[in-house]
């Protein structure tokens, strides 16, 4: 049998260049009974390592651990109630954060509405301008006129006597007439 491969693996093993698979091959090789004299010095190392890998806990260990874990879970459940309360107390600051976060989409919505509106107005104006076929100067003029008209409307509106004033006037006249009536029976 050719042991060159094993010897090469061993060389790489000492240099820590072997993979886990190659190390498994070495372990399997040295587990055989038929080892050449040249490789005998290393056999005990691999056999000892294999032996050390067999050390294990007794069978009751698992049961003991599972019992401990059951106890642990139980005491955790008992503690859970008080923790629930703590959680509720902690909930209020968390809520304020989430509230401010929840308001964020609202602001976003408002911002987007504003943007849409301004774009809409701009395009409408542009559209009107396009329909009129007016030049920029004309457009300015129209806008100025429009603004002026709007101003007039507002003025007209403010110049109109307030209903309360009207009512007062009516009232004074009526009292006068009444006064006249009373004064001159």
């Amino acid at each position: 049998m050719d042991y060159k491969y094993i010897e090469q693996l061993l060389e790489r093993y000492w240099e820590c260049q072997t993979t886990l698979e190659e190390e498994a091959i070495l372990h399997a090789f040295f587990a055989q009974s038929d080892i050449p004299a040249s490789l005998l010095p290393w056999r005990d190392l691999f056999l000892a390592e294999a032996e050390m890998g067999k050390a294990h806990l007794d069978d009751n260990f698992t049961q003991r651990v599972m019992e401990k874990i059951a106890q642990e879970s139980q005491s955790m459940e008992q503690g859970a109630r008080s923790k629930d309360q703590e959680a509720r107390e902690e909930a209020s600051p968390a809520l304020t954060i989430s509230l401010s976060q929840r308001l964020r989409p609202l602001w976003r919505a408002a911002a987007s509405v504003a943007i849409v509106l301004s774009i809409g107005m701009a395009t409408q104006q542009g559209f009107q301008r396009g329909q009129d076929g007016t030049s920029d100067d004309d457009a300015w003029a129209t806008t100025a006129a429009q603004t002026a008209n709007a101003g007039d409307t507002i003025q007209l509106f403010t110049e109109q006597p307030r209903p309360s004033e009207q009512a007062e006037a009516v009232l004074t006249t009526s009292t006068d007439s009444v006064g006249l009536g009373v004064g001159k029976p």
Partner: protein
Amino acid sequence: MNRHVPTGLSAQELTFQNDILPLKDSLFRLALRITFDRLEAEDITQETLLRLWQQRDEWPQIENMGAYASTICRRLALDFLKRAKTRNEGAEEAEGEAHAHIAPVSPLVALPSTAPLPDEVLDQRQRLDIVRQLIDQLPEVQRTILQLRDIEGYSYDEIAQATDLTETQVKVYLHRARTRLKSTLLKPE
């Protein structure tokens, strides 16, 4: 008291049974390799498993359970050594025992260098004991890394995680350990 479990296991209890509990023997061997104390190694293994259970909400974030469990186990074992050392130093101040934590060396260990006995005299059991003791005499980091690699078959990445070292450092320590074993094993020949 324990009637809580048998009715039906929760998902976490199942994960614990299937993925974590099977690590017990590997953890036990690691603790044993560090403390040289069977009973202590058993306690450390149990403590490691309990701590893993207490951290069950963090399991999804744990990349490699074997490596993570080994980290906890090793820290517990090293803590035990520290405590044992201070206890010993208090008790044996006069002796100034620097290596109180190192297991008493069996007379067999000295055999290969002082009076090598031929293979036919020592039976296999004894020869393997010698190698085990050679490994046990390595510095703790080298021993732990050799244990995790050559006995438990962990990858370099996993060992690096378990020991808080880089992969390069792990290879350096492992190289030292293997070289030391190689030269010691060659000597008697």
